[in-house]
């Protein structure tokens, strides 16, 4: 392609748009268009439920579709709690592993470990879900037996499983962020007499702070949208909002998240233009807004980080 272009007259060559440039323009335009169209469709199709319930759609605590009662709060609660547990688990382990690979391992070992962990991100989520059913459910059920959970299907089970699933994302992005800290800084620290631990705690981690936050936010974005693995272990119990939303004991109750509600067979029942369908689409809209907000915040942190380290 390069030779073909260079044989063109000079004036034409300058003006002819390159295939790569126009193709990437078209495709990113397509992606933006798809997102905008999706949001618009969700918004239009969910209008009836906003009309009937108003803001009560988000703050309502009861969802009984045959009584035309649609309150999404228990599902928003479930989504947030499950994602939070996942993050609490993935943050220390992911960043800890990233410190190890980026600060202590020689380059070749680092790549080997990093690639192995990234491979975990490619395992289909239904496989995680089945492992969750086979092992994790029973472990949680037995381990917390003295708190008497009704079964192994709990928000905690789903959160732990999700934590494992987002670990590769958090770890590999955190590793990138730490590698972005210039080696000169570390050498300077060491020459001032700081030991390896002090260098990590005093230099690398603070300097990579924005990148690390971005890693966590992008992991969180993945956690919010995950469906099938959560679906298999969360219990899918509607309207199970605890009295006190900060109660940790409630993590051992079954719950429902926005994505598991959408993944269930209720979507088939709702299909066809009714208020019920509008309510289901509204859930999708809320979920998309949550994921978008977190992802954009994450991408923003990453960008400003990149600019600062130039």
């Amino acid at each position: 392609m390069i030779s073909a272009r260079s044989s063109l007259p000079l004036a034409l060559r300058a003006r002819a748009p390159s295939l790569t440039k126009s193709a990437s323009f078209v495709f990113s335009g397509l992606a933006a268009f798809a997102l905008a169209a999706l949001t618009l469709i969700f918004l239009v199709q969910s209008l009836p439920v906003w009309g009937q319930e108003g803001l009560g759609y988000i703050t309502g605590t009861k969802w009984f579709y045959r009584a035309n009662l649609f309150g999404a709060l228990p599902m928003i609660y479930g989504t947030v709690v499950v994602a939070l547990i996942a993050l609490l688990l993935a943050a220390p382990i992911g960043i800890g592993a990233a410190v190890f690979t980026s600060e202590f391992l020689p380059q070749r070992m680092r790549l080997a470990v990093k690639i192995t962990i990234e491979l975990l991100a490619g395992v289909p989520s239904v496989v995680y879900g089945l492992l969750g059913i086979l092992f994790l459910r029973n472990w949680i059920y037995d381990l917390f037996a003295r708190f008497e959970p009704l079964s192994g299907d709990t928000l905690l089970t789903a959160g732990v499983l999700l934590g494992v699933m987002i670990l590769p994302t958090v770890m590999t992005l955190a590793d990138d962020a730490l590698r972005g800290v210039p080696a000169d800084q570390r050498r300077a620290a060491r020459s001032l007499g700081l030991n390896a631990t002090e260098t990590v705690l005093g230099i690398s981690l603070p300097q990579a702070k924005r990148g690390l936050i971005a890693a966590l936010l992008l992991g969180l974005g993945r956690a919010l949208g995950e469906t099938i693995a959560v679906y298999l272990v969360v219990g899918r119990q509607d309207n199970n909002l605890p009295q006190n939303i900060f109660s940790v004991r409630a993590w051992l109750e079954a719950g429902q998240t926005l994505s598991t509600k959408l993944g269930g067979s209720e979507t088939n029942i709702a299909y066809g233009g009714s208020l019920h369908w509008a309510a289901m689409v509204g859930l999708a809209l809320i979920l998309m807004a949550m994921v978008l907000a977190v992802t954009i915040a994450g991408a923003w942190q990453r960008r400003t980080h990149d600019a600062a380290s130039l």
Partner: protein
Amino acid sequence: MKISTSVFALLAFASFAQADVLKINGSTTVNLPAAEGAEILRAEKKMDITVDTQGGSSGGISALGDGQVQIGMSSKPVSDDDRAKYPKVKFNPIHIGEDAVAMIVSKDVWDGGLQALTKQQTQDLYEGKVKNWKEVGGPDERVVFFNKEPGRGTWEVFAHWAYGDPKKAPQVSLPEVGGNEETRNKVGSTRGAISQLSSSWADGKKVFALGVKTESGEVLQPTPDNIATHKYPMSRPLFLITNGEPQGEAKTFLDFMLSPQGQELVKKHGYLALDQLKTGSP
């Protein structure tokens, strides 16, 4: 130019190949014999068949309604609501066998002495009025009710029996289970658990099928005889559904499932084949 032509050709080929695949979706109950039938046809006739269980019976019906599949699998009849939702689709349910739904419990409940429930007791359990098994003659253990998702064929059969009409069943907020495998696994691994499940999936080792106690005190078990004569109240037909008369690959598949070889698969998975259903019964 050249690239775009070949991309176009590729796309055209892909959509052509797509059209050649026989797609089937629906009930996890019907899936067992259907998936095995598909396996045989794949090997013997080199047919391209995919069998999926997205959303259970109602998933099968809506996938057929949307034209995503050529055959829907269902363990419940097509309702008037379904027909109203897809007015252009001619649902053509083809009866391939019969099955029964049972209330199934975990081993500790069974061993604790509970082996049959009346309709009233089942309703009380479902509505959360009974919270401990000893209230209905079982062990001193909390009740954990895993509800089959509404919309699943199993749930509809249960609701028909317990409340006369699925629409009259009170709306409850219980933990829900989807496919049969998930149901069996979760009931088997939880103390005090109960759920609704195809009786042939109750293995008698980790999960046990309860009998139905009638008002006169008779206990009806989901035996082949009781299912065939509809004496057992939660029996149900199994269907493969097409849009209009089956044609082409779909017809080949249906003919196979109705042939002696296909009916043998229905029996193999614990369901009743058509010739086992007593003639004369409704």
